C-alpha cells in the first residue's frame, strides 16, 4: 500500500512523459483517484495498528533504506493526497495542451517524491528526495515562461541547492559521528557533542532555507507569486511542508533526544514570530492578490516554527503534545487553505485578466463563489472558529500558556489580527462597487468548485479534530521507538 503511494505517481509520470498526447490529463486523473484511496488506506492501517516501517529491498537496518509510517506521516500524506488530487483535477481544466505536456510529468514526479518524503527514514535518502522535489518545483515555477518567473525560479533553485548542500554536509557529519544513516537508529545512537551540534546546525540551516523562514524568505514571494495558479498552490501548500516535515522529524526524532536543541529552538521561535509579523505586514501592503497570498505563506510558515521552542526546550514537557498537535494542524490547515486561495486567485485572473486588487472591485456579486472561497480560506488562516486554523491556534495557545513562555503568544494574537487585516483587505475590494462594470469572463464550473471544496475542507477539519489528534499523539514519533527497536 505504502509503496504504491510512490509507485503509482511514478508510473503515471512516465506514462505522461512517453504519451503526451491529447489525453495527457487522464494520467493525472487516474493518479488523483488512486492516491487519496491509498493514503486513506495507509492512514487506517496506522490508526488501527500503530506505526510501521518497511525495509526496501528487504535490507534491514542499518544497511537498507526504510520507509516509515506513523501518525505524522499519514497526516501529511493525506493532506498531500487531498490537495494534490484536487489541484490535479483543477489543472486538467486549467492548462492548455502545450503547457500540460510539461506540467504533468513534473508534477507527478514531484507527487511521488513528496509521498516518499513524508515516509522518509534515511537521512541521505531524504537528501535525494528533497532534491527531486526541488528540481520539479523549480521547473514547475517557471512553467509560464515569463521573465519574472524565470528569475524567481532560478533564485529558488539556487537557494534550495545551497540549502540541500548544507543539509548534505550535515548528513556527512552525522555519518562521521555515528556511522549510520537511519533516523530511528540515530535517535538512540546519537549523543550530544560538537560534531552532532555541527550536523544539527547545518541540517537545520539547510532545511530552514528551503522552508523559507524569515531571513531566507526572500525567494518565496516571487516564486509563488509568478507561477501559474495551480503551481503556486502546489508550491505553497505542499513543497514548503516537505522540508518543514523533515526538519520536524529530525528535531524531534534525532536531535532532541541528543539534547542539543534547546537554544536553537528559541532562535527558531523568535524567527518564527518575526516571520509572522513581517510576512503579515508585507501581505498588508502588496498590490497584487497572489503576492498577498505568497507573503501570507511567509507568515504562516512562521507559525509552524513556534513548535520548536515549545517542543524541544524542556524534555518530557507536559504541553509538548499540544504544541505537537497544534503545529501539525497548522501545517495541514494552512496547506488546504492556501491551495484554495491560490486557486481562487487563479480563477480571478482567468476572469478579469489581472490579480491587482484594485481591479477586483465588485467581484463579490460577479464571482460570488470565488469570493466565498476567499472568505472561507481566510477564516482558516485567521484561526477563527470553527476551522482547522482555530484548532491549531487553540492548541498552540494552550501550550504557550501552559509552558509559561507567554511571549510567544504575540504571534498567534497579533498575527491573527494582521491576517484578518489582509484577508479583509481582499474582501473589502471584492465588495467595493466598481465605477464601471469591468469586463469579466465566466469561469468554468469545475474551476470554481475546486477551490471551494478545498476551503471547505480547511474549515471542516476543525470539527473533527479528535481522530487526527489521536493519530498524532498515540502514534507520535517517539512512541514508536520501542517497536522500531525490535
Amino acid at each position, binding site marked *: 500500500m505504502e*509503496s*504504491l503511494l*510512490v*509507485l503509482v505517481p*511514478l*508510473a503515471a509520470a*512516465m506514462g505522461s*512523459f*512517453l504519451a503526451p498526447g491529447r489525453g495527457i490529463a487522464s494520467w493525472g486523473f487516474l493518479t488523483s483517484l488512486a492516491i487519496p484511496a491509498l493514503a486513506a488506506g495507509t492512514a487506517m492501517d496506522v490508526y488501527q495498528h500503530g506505526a510501521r516501517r*518497511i*525495509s*526496501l*529491498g*528487504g*535490507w534491514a537496518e542499518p*544497511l*537498507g*533504506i526504510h*520507509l516509515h509510517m506513523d501518525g505524522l506521516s499519514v497526516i501529511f500524506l493525506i493532506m498531500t493526497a487531498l490537495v494534490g488530487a484536487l489541484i490535479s483535477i483543477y489543472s486538467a481544466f*486549467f*492548462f*492548455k495542451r*502545450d503547457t500540460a505536456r*510539461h506540467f504533468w*510529468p*513534473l508534477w507527478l*514526479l514531484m507527487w*511521488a*517524491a513528496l509521498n*516518499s518524503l513524508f515516509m522518509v527514514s534515511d537521512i*541521505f*535518502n531524504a537528501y*535525494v528526495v528533497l532534491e*527531486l522535489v526541488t*528540481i*520539479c518545483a*523549480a*521547473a514547475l515555477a*517557471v*512553467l*509560464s*515562461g*515569463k521573465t519574472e518567473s524565470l528569475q524567481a525560479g532560478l533564485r529558488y533553485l539556487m537557494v534550495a541547492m545551497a540549502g540541500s548542500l548544507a543539509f548534505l554536509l550535515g548528513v556527512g*557529519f552525522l*555519518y*562521521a*559521528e555515528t*556511522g*549510520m*544513516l537511519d533516523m530511528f537508529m540515530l535517535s538512540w545512537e546519537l549523543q550530544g557533542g*560538537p*560534531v552532532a*551540534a*555541527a550536523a544539527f546546525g547545518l541540517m537545520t540551516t539547510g532545511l530552514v532555507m528551503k522552508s523559507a523562514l524569515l531571513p531566507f524568505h526572500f525567494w518565496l514571494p516571487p516564486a509563488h507569486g509568478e507561477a501559474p495558479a495551480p503551481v503556486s498552490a502546489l508550491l505553497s501548500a505542499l513543497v514548503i511542508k516537505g522540508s518543514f516535515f523533515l526538519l520536524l522529524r529530525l528535531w524531534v526524532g534525532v536531535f532532541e533526544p541528543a539534547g542539543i536543541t534547546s537554544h536553537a529552538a528559541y532562535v527558531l521561535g523568535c524567527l518564527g514570530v518575526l516571520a509572522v509579523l513581517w510576512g503579515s505586514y508585507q501581505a498588508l501592503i502588496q498590490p497584487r492578490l497572489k503576492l498577498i497570498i505568497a507573503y501570507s505563506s511567509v507568515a504562516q510558515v512562521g507559525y509552524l516554527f513556534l513548535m520548536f521552542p515549545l517542543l524541544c526546550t524542556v524534555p518530557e514537557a507536559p504541553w509538548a503534545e499540544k504544541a505537537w498537535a497544534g503545529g501539525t494542524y497548522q501545517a495541514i490547515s494552512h496547506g488546504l487553505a492556501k491551495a484554495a486561495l491560490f486557486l481562487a486567485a487563479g480563477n480571478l485572473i*482567468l476572469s478579469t485578466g489581472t490579480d491587482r486588487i484594485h481591479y477586483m472591485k465588485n467581484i463579490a456579486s460577479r464571482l460570488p463563489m470565488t469570493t466565498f472561497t476567499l472568505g472561507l480560506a481566510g477564516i482558516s488562516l485567521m484561526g477563527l472558529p470553527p476551522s482547522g486554523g482555530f484548532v491549531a491556534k487553540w492548541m498552540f495557545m494552550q501550550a504557550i500558556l501552559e509552558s509559561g513562555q507567554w511571549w510567544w503568544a504575540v504571534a498567534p494574537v497579533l498575527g491573527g489580527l494582521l491576517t484578518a487585516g489582509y484577508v479583509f483587505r481582499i474582501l473589502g475590494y471584492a465588495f467595493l462597487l466598481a465605477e464601471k462594470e469591468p469586463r469579466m*469572463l*465566466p*469561469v*468554468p464550473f469545475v*474551476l470554481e468548485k475546486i477551490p471551494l471544496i478545498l476551503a471547505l475542507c480547511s474549515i471542516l477539519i476543525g470539527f473533527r479534530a479528535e481522530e487526527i489528534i489521536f493519530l498524532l499523539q498515540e502514534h507520535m514519533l517517539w512512541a514508536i521507538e520501542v517497536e522500531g527497536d525490535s
Partner: protein
Amino acid sequence: MALFLDILVAFSLVAIAWRIMRAPGHFQAVVLFITFGLLLSLAWARLNSPDIALAEAAVGAGLAGVLLLDTLRAVAQPGKVKTGAHFSWLLLPCLLLAGLLTLSIIHIQPDSQGLARAVEAGMQTTSLEYPVTAVLLDFRGYDTWLELGVLLAAVLGLLCVRRKKSIRAPLLPAPAEPVGRWLISILLPLILLVGGFLLWLGAFAPGGAFQAGVVWAAGGVLLWQAGHPSLGALPVSLWRTGAVLGFALFWLLAATALIRNEPMLTHPQAKAWILAVEYAAALSIAVCLTSLAIGGQKSEDRNQKSEVRDQRSGDRCQITNNR
C-alpha cells in the same frame, strides 16, 4: 612523503577555489573550475576511491566544463565584463563558519568503520561482487532509482524552459576540415568500447552504470559538436524511451516485488535482473546527460517562432476555448 602530497593537493584545491571566486573574468573562472574538478579527482584517487575519481573527472571536469563553457559562450556580453560583486564582507562570517566546522571536525574520531561491516555482511547475500555497485544498485537501490528520477526531472525542466517536445539541439555546421571528422571516427568507437568496458567492470571492480553513462554521454556531446547528423535523426519516441528506460526498469523491479508480496525493490538475487537494470540505467544516464549538455541550446528558427507564440499565449487556460 604521502603526507606532503596530500597537503599539496589540499592546498592547491583551496587555492584554486579561491582563485575561482576571485577571478576577474568569467572565462578564467570556468577554466579554473575545470582544473578544480581534475584536482578533485586526484584527491579522490589519493583517497582510494577510483569510482569517484572517474566520475568526477568525467562530470566535474568534463561535462560540467562543457556546460559552463557553452553557457558562457551563449551569454557572453562583448565589451562588457562586469565583475558586479557585492557583499565581500560576507567572507568573514563564512570563514567563521569554516572555523566552527573545523573545530567540530577535530572531534571526529575517524576510526569508526561506518557501514563497512554491514556492507560486508550484505555482500554475502547479494549477487554483486563489487561493494560500491552493490550499495548503489541493491542495498540503497532506492536512492539510485530516485537519482535517475532527478536526472529525468532535470531533462523535463529543460524541456519546460525551452518549450520543446524533445531535446533536439540545432546541429552545428559540420566541420570543413578533416581533422574533426577523423577524430570522431577514431574516438567514437573507442568511447563506446570504453563505456561498455566500464559497465561490464562495475559488477566486480571500480566502474559501473554511472561512469559508463557519462563516457557515452561524452560521445554524444562530441557527436553534436562535430555536427554529425545522427543525433538529429533520432526519432523522438526512441529518445524518450531511452531517457526513461533505466527508471522504468527500476520501477518494474520495485513493482514486481509487490506482486510477490515482498517489500518494494526486493528482487530474487539473480544477477541477470540487476545487470539488466544497470545496463538500462547506463543508457538512460547517457541519454539524459547528453540531453542536458546539448538541450540548453536555443531552439531552431522554426521552433523559435512557435516559441514566441507560446509565450504570448502564456498560460491562458481553456476558458478561451470554452467560450
